[in-house]
């Protein structure tokens, strides 16, 4: 065996034994690249994910809801930062990741390319979008790359509040006036299918799945995770007295799971490829934040340099 193959085998043995891989350990180049891609895209999703909810902070219906939404959006900024620093341990710089986001080379979760049209959307997002994210992220707490797994543990501790505050918003609306209940139903109608798409393509069409499983990046397939989401959500919707917009949704006694209808994969690919309702708007907002913040970054750096110079003169 060539030395490279030996290393690969030893690496795989470590993964199979359930050992974590740390940044300075030897790893196949593909493992490094895959992680840089996945972790940075996860980070971008957290950051872009602030935009649809940020849209409602100033219009929250009460101080309590405003505090909760602000805290949630701030958490998402934190999640982005945990993940960017996990990706940086693999040798990519923060600036390079941000460049990749702005140029469109790096993707982020398509769910954030849908607009938030009413206050009820804050409920639906917390309940469904964070709910779907939690299912994925709980699995990732056991992923093989140490810094990614640790970031996930931290994130999962914070996510539960996100989902519960969203569900509570839905509960209040669903038990309110007929108009309020209608708002909640409308938000569910619009966010159900995009949330289902968050788990990615069907297993047979998911190109990275096999390697992800072998390297224990993922431990469950897209379809398994999606099924779990459906099974969790149906009783939650029933409790609210709302209807999930899927005529094929039905309990399957034999499988012990809910059957559900087909996802519109054309819509999925269209949004992934950049033609969703808000792709342009989201990227513009990120690009503007970056450009308009430049003078702040530069000024802070200039100040720090000046301080350290005057310190070294004083010594």
């Amino acid at each position, binding site marked *: 065996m060539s030395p490279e193959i030996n290393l690969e085998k030893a690496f795989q043995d470590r993964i199979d034994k359930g050992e974590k891989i740390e940044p300075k350990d*030897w790893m196949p180049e593909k493992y490094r690249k895959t992680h840089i891609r996945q972790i940075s895209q996860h980070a971008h999703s957290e950051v872009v994910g602030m935009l649809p909810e940020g849209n409602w902070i100033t219009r929250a219906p009460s101080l309590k809801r405003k505090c909760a939404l602000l805290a949630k959006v701030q958490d998402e900024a934190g999640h982005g930062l945990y993940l960017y620093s996990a990706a940086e341990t693999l040798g990519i710089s923060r600036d390079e990741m941000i460049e990749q986001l702005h140029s469109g080379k790096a993707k982020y979760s398509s769910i954030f390319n849908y607009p938030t049209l009413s206050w009820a959307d804050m409920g639906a997002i917390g309940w469904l979008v964070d709910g779907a994210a939690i299912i994925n992220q709980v699995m990732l707490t056991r992923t093989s790359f140490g810094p990614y797994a640790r970031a996930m543990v931290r994130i999962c501790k914070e996510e539960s509040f996100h989902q519960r505050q969203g569900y509570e918003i839905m509960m209040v609306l669903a038990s309110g006036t007929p108009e309020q209940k209608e708002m909640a139903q409308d938000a569910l109608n619009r966010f159900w299918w995009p949330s289902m798409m968050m788990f990615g393509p069907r297993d047979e069409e998911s190109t990275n799945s096999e390697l992800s499983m072998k390297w224990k990046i993922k431990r469950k397939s897209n379809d398994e995770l999606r099924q779990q989401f459906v099974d969790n959500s149906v009783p939650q919707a029933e409790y609210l007295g709302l209807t999930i917009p899927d005529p094929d949704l039905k309990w399957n006694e034999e499988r012990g799971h809910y059957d559900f209808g087909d996802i519109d994969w054309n819509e999925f690919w269209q949004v992934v490829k950049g033609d969703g309702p808000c792709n342009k708007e989201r990227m513009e907002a990120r690009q503007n934040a970056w450009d308009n913040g430049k003078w702040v970054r530069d000024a802070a750096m200039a100040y720090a340099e000046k301080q350290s110079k005057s310190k070294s003169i004083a010594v």
Partner: protein
Amino acid sequence: MSDNNNQWPLWEIFIRSKNGLEHRHVGSLHAADAEMAIENARDVYTRRMEGVSLWVVESKDITASNPENMGELFEPAIDKVYRHPTFYDVPDEIKHM
């Protein structure tokens, strides 16, 4: 990889979760200087009372052992079982030991 020199330096963040416990590494972040690193660490890592004290260290100032030297560094301890109390046979009726 990128050669953008104007990027804020990277800092490693350590938190003491409560008095009596040691500071523990929690992650890293970018900041222009130490003061800003502490302020940012407060916002990023202690939004829910996770800490009572913070240490920030510029990442470039940390020297880490190389995983390839793991053997020579740590293996010598493996065969020194006589450093553990269970290595010594003491009858059960001997108390307080």
